């Protein structure tokens, strides 16, 4: 300890003699990525997908989803990894997503107050989604991956951002599950069967912005999504956190006591957030995109 002190003192002397803190700039932030937690009731990234090309049908296309990131680094090492997981894949594992072929444009709103309706079942063509009650939600299972670990795409990340304040992933990352078929019992009698399906996300060129204004709260990426036979290419843009809303006031970063908001939405004021009432989610302000914010 003493020798470290002495070395430090000599280093201080040299440092002092040379630069003396006249010209030193504040250190750049490390590569972090924002994560929500049920502990503080914060969600993950609000992510928008734009299709570039592909063969999948319109009703399975990605448009908007909640995407969760998590950062891993053992102390004292320089290896940083992140995990990426979409709500779409996560809901299959949690039993909240039953119908792979469910048309999202259909309103599955026939839930009664008690909440017995836990499933939205399509028994025919579009437009005839019918609410059915099941005894227990049924998580989908991949026999080759019973713990669901493959739902997380894992990849290495830079330790420090580049000169533009962007952190890059060092390779591709894949999340892939092949769910087996399921047959569930309906409360009203009878059963419903769901075919097996394979779903895969491949994440490429994930760029996470790390500046003092945006500490890991913005990202862009390229995503290849496959469902059974088809494949689509997307660009993805996301900001953190995802906040649900019914009007613009709910998205405001400031508290609005008269309207009943004890505190702000938790969104960065630079996002100039407003409410997309169709999605029910706060989105970036008019004319702002993740890329334009990151460029600042």
């Amino acid at each position, binding site marked *: 300890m003493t020798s470290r002190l002495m070395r430090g003192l000599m280093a201080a002397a040299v440092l002092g003699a040379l630069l003396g803190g006249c010209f030193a*700039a504040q250190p750049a932030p490390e590569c972090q990525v924002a994560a929500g937690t049920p502990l503080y009731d914060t969600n*993950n990234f609000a992510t928008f997908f734009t299709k570039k090309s592909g063969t999948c049908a319109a009703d399975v296309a990605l448009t908007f989803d909640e995407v969760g990131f*998590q950062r891993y680094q053992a102390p004292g090492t320089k290896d940083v990894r992140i995990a990426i997981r979409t709500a779409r894949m996560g809901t299959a594992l949690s039993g909240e997503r039953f119908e792979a072929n469910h048309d999202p444009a259909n309103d599955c709103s026939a839930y009664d107050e008690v909440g017995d309706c836990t499933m939205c079942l399509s028994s025919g063509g579009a437009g005839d989604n019918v609410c059915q009650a099941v005894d227990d939600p049924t998580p989908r299972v991949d026999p080759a991956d019973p713990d669901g670990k493959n739902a997380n795409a894992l990849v290495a990340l830079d330790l420090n951002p580049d000169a533009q304040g962007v952190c890059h992933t060092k390779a591709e990352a894949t999340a892939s599950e092949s769910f087996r078929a399921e047959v569930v019992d309906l409360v009203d009698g009878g059963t419903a069967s769901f075919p097996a399906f394979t779903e895969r996300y491949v994440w490429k060129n994930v760029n996470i912005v790390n500046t003092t204004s945006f500490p890991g709260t913005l990202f862009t990426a390229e995503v290849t999504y496959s469902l059974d036979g088809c494949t689509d290419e997307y660009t993805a843009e996301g900001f953190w956190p995802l906040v649900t809303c019914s009007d613009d006031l709910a998205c405001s970063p400031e508290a609005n006591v008269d309207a009943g908001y004890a505190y702000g939405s938790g969104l*960065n004021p630079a996002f100039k957030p407003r409410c997309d009432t169709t999605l029910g989610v706060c989105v970036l302000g008019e004319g702002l995109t993740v890329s334009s914010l990151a460029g600042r």
Partner: protein
Amino acid sequence: MPATPSVHRFTLAATLLLSLAVAAQGTSVLTGTVVDGATGKPVPDVLVTVTSPALQGEETAVTDAEGVYRIGQLPPGSFTLKLDREAYRPYLRQDVNLRVDRTVRVNVQLQPESLKAEEVLVVGRAPTVDVGSTTTGLNVGKEFVAAVPFVQPSAAGVRSFEALTQVAPQVVADQYGFGINGTTSPENLTLVDGLSVTDPSVGITGAALPVDFVEEANVITGGYQAEYGRATGGVLNVVTKSGSNEFHGSVFGNFTPGLLSGSRPEIRNDATIFRTNERLWNSGDFGVELGGPIMKDKLWFYAGFSPSFSRVQQERRLYRYLVDDMGNQLYDELGARRQAELPNTRQSHFADSRALSYIAKLTYLINADHNVAVSVSGSPTTSDTGAPFTAGLAGTTTTANNVDVAVRYAGGLLDKHLLIDATAGWHRQIASTLPSDGSRIGSTFGGAAQPQVIFRRTAPHSINDLEELNPEAAGLCDPKGTANATLCPATSAGREYTMGGIGFMQEAAIDRVQVKGAATYLFTALGHHTAKAGIDFERLQYETTKAYSGGAVLRESTSGDAFRDYDRYGYLTGPDTFTQQDSLHAVSSSNGIAAFVQDSWSVKDLVTVNLGLRYETQQLFAGDGTLGLTLNNMLSPRVGLIYDFTQQGRSKLFASYARYYEAIPLDIADRALTAENEGGFYNSRTGTPPCEPAADLRKIGGSCQASGNDVALGRPSDPSQKALSIGQGKTPVDPAIQPQSTDEIVVGGEYEVFADARAGVSYTRRYINTVIEDMSRDEGNTYFLGNPGYGLAKDFPLAKRDYDAVTVYFTKVFAEQWLAQVSYTWSYLRGNYAGLFRPETGQLDPNINSDFDLISLLANREGPLDGDRTHAIKAYGAKEFVLSGALSLVVGLSYEGRSGRPINYLASHPIYGENEAFVLPRGAGGRLPWTHTVNGKLALNWKATRENTVTLTADVFNMFNFAAVTAVDETLSSADLLPVVGAGNPQQQLCLAGANPSCKPGLKKFDEDASAIVDASVKDYNPNYKNVTAYQPPLTVRFGVKVSF
């Protein structure tokens, strides 16, 4: 950041000052003009010789062409001045008192030998006005400390020098020390023999030594020159005793018996069934000090050794609520719930603290021009907080071992026109907070291996769930397992019940290595210049090892259905793959460089102009060695003007302007600039096997932490479903961040009214420029370090702390058997930022406390700050009565009267929790009453032989046992009350002032999920609001014996 358990408390640092101080080691100056008594013309080439018991050998100087002489680098003490020149009568003046760091002017009229007639008598005494500087504050010397009662028995019984600070005007005691000029105590600089002994981690005073080892202390409250920096408060400059040519020393002992303490009314709080109180059992100290020559006029030594102790009795009583036959709560006439003590449930024990203070010094005179000093001192301290009254596990022991080692060199070149001072020193603190049973971080046995369990279910637990009471008491309370206890609720809204291990543990090693040098050059150019330049390197290091006892803290959820378990140190290496660390180890550090230039220019001997400039930089490094924060180019100008209208050293009119920069303590580097890896799992209360922490504490580690009990609470997009990581990464820094600084303006005047006595008046104004704090623009989701109101934090309000004070004072040094010191200060302290700790919660996290964290926290924060005392009177006096040839009695008296501090209306904030929201503007709750403290002292001195004196003393503190209220419950509500913006209407204020439970002032609150605003109900108000929570300390008596030789 929000307040967490890891708040610094007892970091008394033992500073081993190895200051090798040999010979004339000092910073005081004697100067003056010698004129011909007949013609009035200046006399050059007069040989001026000064001698003193405090000086090895003698110091000489020769007057210049204008008759001016100057002798610097003198230690404090009593000097004899002798002037010789051919054709003139020799001149002798004795008892010239020099205090630490002072410039005293002694002008002399030499009488030509040719002049016959009567003897020229030396009339009057040496002047005491410090004509060289604009500093405010005062000197506290040995005679003052011996005669005046004000040094109370303090932590571990050490009567430490820090108490000397309180004597100066414009100084207010706060939770961690003494705040000077409206600032907080961590903002001060404490120097012992020239080296900083400030705690490098949090900025409070990091050393303690008994006043018996202290020669003198200079409390500098403001107006100081560029040679002092790294403080936005004041400076406490302490000089320890040195040896002399004769052997002198003393043996002393003091004892404060708790039996003679005054009584205090019981503090009631009907919101809880527990009442704890503490009283002093006894405290005392014993010591030996000795100084003398090893070689006369060449090598001196001084050594001191003093163990001390303090014992406090802690008692806990248990109560139950009284209900009528129908089960309804009974109330007393004041509206408080009636309670009765449970039979045979009183428990008490002792909490002890001990310290061992020591000092050893060598002073070596190389030759007439050069001397060297070495010293070592320390005050290792151990404090027990006492075993908890709950399930018999270990209590907490806090230790603080400090060592200060220093080497000092002082020399003169060019016929003493160039003076060089150089000092190198090492200040080291080893502090720990560990279980009292001797277990340490990493132990697999004892208190360190037991997790802490916190019960906090909103529907209260009965005391029978948590403790084994005797059958009679148990029968009077709700039975075990009651879902909603009403008779003996052990938990309630805002009140937790803790059992098990001590929770947070820490072992820390804190170091400061300091090397500094200064050169003083005297020259003449349109007057006399005393120019000084210096450079100073400082390296701080803060090594911490943190752990939670048993590796986890189990915190009951408010619904009672689960125990949260996420205070573990550890990290995720993959989804749901949590690696637990037994402890967290980090070494953060800081490099600081300072350089200064100053000149004290006596313009044609009419007016003195002080000009100085100080340059500082500081770089803070995170726990992994990377740069965390850099503070560049801190330039502080210091300007002062002094005019002595008597031109005799008997008066001054002065004005000064100064800028002070803060040196940021290392706590920020350890907690915000270093990633803290914390996380854990969710545990279910019921599962296989069942998790019942209260059932058998030994099983806590097993059943509650079994992996079968983990609950998957992750949402679909969360990569980890059962484990969570809540550790913050490094807090990013606003690229445009500015250092923290305060400006000061002082204007005043002083006049020597009669021999040895001066009176004066001064006006001080201090205001803050920029503050560094951690802030969040997104309601606590992400944080950054910046300046409120600037840069990234433009939408935050500016930090404000405005202090205005006018002080009128009178000081008479001890001469002709009496001394007096009286001051009255009127002051006005307003703002929204108290300083480096938060008085409302006690959070000591300099520059990263919860001030300014969220914009929504900042409503109503402006107003009179906690340290505001409109009126403060400090009066001290002592008189010696000679009873006979060998006996004398000294009677000392002190009076301190202060108007009360402001009272706030505090409620809970939806995100930050208890006491973080100001419902009405700061201070709207009125003021606490005046506090008056009268202390008395009797000292009987018996000159047993020519060399030896025996002194018997009795100090009575708070002689009249005044019991002024010094704190009240300021929590208006534990609910999330809405701040009232716009001062609140008078009806609301009146209603709240009465704290009438049925009054409806129309306050609103956020409901449970903070989604709607509803009216606050009567149930939301804290029935204890504005009730007393603390009284002024009671009367205590201290007896002392001292044999001096």
